[in-house]
């Protein structure tokens, strides 16, 4: 591909007079991608850089580390911790449950319509997030929700008396899992499809048991894409706000809700502290994605 395009260019370079070719090429070469880059710089890169620089400035615009140091205030640390805990828990639960479902529908010998129905539903459910998802879980596990009521009347189990609350860490985690599992299924099914039949046959020929085949072939091959997806799910949950806000109002102090309150009303009484919180969020999701890309490139060599 590269060879052909290169030779094309040299041919056209030879046939056209050099000055004319240059005059024509320079502007048109960039015309097609110019709108994209202008858009990305103006509305994605510059606003983010603006906040990141603002995190290192005080009100007078001088360089300072005070904002980042102020992130160690107890309520901000608590917000980061609970955010990380919810994101990690929902990512891990979502990942393992999603993997189990993916293996069940691809390798479990279930009827083929189950596979396509599950994949279709996963596409829908992974995009069913935000405010409506919170409503659905309030109607299910809220104090008057169907599951709460049935557990209480039929099984005599009052989950609220046992300390469960939908407006809590586990309530939020359980809700996030609703879009985390389908996302895992959508991403990991191609990886499981990538396990070649020959590998299983080769392992069997060499006398491997099923357990050995899984432990020494399947898990090592799936592992990088599994870890990569866990990280993606983590970042996905970490930046989410609408579900948590509609579910808990501001009673659960996660980072996006803290930042939301700060943007609306400067609750921290320091505009640049808001920048620092945003900076912290970018650092965490950014780091997560660096690992994601690293795992992704490691996993891709098996998926050809």
């Amino acid at each position: 591909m590269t060879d052909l395009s290169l030779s094309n260019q040299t041919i056209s370079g030879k046939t056209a007079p050099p000055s004319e070719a240059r005059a024509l090429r320079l502007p048109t070469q960039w015309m097609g991608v110019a709108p994209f880059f202008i858009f990305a710089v103006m509305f994605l890169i510059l606003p983010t850089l603006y906040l990141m620089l603002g995190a290192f400035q005080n009100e007078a615009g001088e360089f300072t580390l005070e904002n980042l140091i102020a992130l160690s205030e107890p309520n901000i640390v608590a917000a980061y911790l609970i955010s990380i805990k919810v994101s990690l828990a929902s990512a891990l639960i979502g990942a393992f449950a999603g993997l189990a479902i993916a293996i069940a529908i691809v390798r479990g010998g279930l009827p083929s319509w189950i596979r396509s129905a599950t994949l279709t539903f996963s596409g829908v459910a992974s995009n069913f997030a935000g405010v409506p998802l919170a409503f659905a879980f309030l109607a299910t596990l809220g104090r008057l929700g169907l599951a709460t009521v049935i557990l209480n009347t039929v099984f005599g189990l009052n989950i609220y008396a046992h300390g469960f609350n939908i407006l809590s860490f586990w309530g939020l985690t359980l809700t996030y899992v609703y879009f985390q599992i389908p996302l895992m299924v959508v991403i990991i099914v191609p990886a499981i499809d990538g396990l070649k039949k020959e590998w299983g046959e080769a392992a069997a020929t060499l006398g491997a048991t099923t357990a050995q085949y899984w432990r020494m072939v399947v898990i090592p091959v799936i592992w990088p894409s599994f870890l990569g997806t866990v990280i993606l799910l983590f970042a996905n949950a970490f930046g989410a706000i609408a579900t948590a806000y509609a579910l808990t109002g501001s009673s659960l102090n996660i980072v996006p809700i803290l930042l939301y309150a700060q943007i609306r009303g400067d609750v921290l009484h320091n505009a640049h502290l808001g920048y620092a919180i945003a900076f912290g969020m970018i650092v965490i999701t950014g780091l997560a994605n660096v690992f994601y890309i690293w795992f992704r490139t490691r996993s891709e060599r098996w998926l050809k």
Partner: protein
Amino acid sequence: MKTGRFWAWVVFILGAAYFFIPLIATAEFSMRMRRGAYSFDAYQIVLGDARFQATFMYSVVAAIFTIILGVLVVVPAAYWIRLRLPQLRPIVEFITLLPLVIPAIVIVFGYIRMYGSNSPLPFLANDTATNALLVIGYATLSLPYMYRAVDTGLRTIDVRTLTEAAQILGAGWSTIITRVILPNVLIAVLSGAFLTFAIVIGEFTMASLLNRPAFGPYLQNIGANRAYEPAALAIIAFAITWGCMSLIQILSRFAPKSANRPN
């Protein structure tokens, strides 16, 4: 193998229970408004609410503009990279993935601070400009999906030959893009468009922080103040998402599977 199939069924049924119970519970809850009998009262109230109609229409229009803007930004870039600047592909792919890295709340926070009333580009100065900024923000959010969809579509056609054929017939660049390339990737563009629609229609963070009368903030407001209407709205929102995804699936059947690619 028999035990394997047994466990596969167990996993599948547990998963199905986790995903269907909330939907059933929500549907049941939404019909409980009238005492002692199931009814669609909550739906009637919601659909008849003037604010529902106004905010829903606002978000539909915002979604349409978002799709148009997304197509205008993404299609020429993706086309041009395939045709002339393949060396830019990694950079562009990296940029299109950034909205997945940078949370929406951070992006809109940046807008508010950078494009405030006193800035050289005061997007927040009046309603029209703020509406435009919301559409821009939505286009940013949908960038990863739009770019991926269009790029997949372009991969199945032979961009170079089509372009050269059009040039030989005397077509200019705008003709090539609108009458040759776009019709060929139309199905891919439409799948990206429906996904964008599903994401934008109930979006809360950006609309709320830019103070726009969109569907997402309306949903949140109803959730904070009503009992049965939120459940009805959740079912309606699920139906919309389902509709968008089904359209994408149906469209994918019409997409070209492969093409002759001499290079």
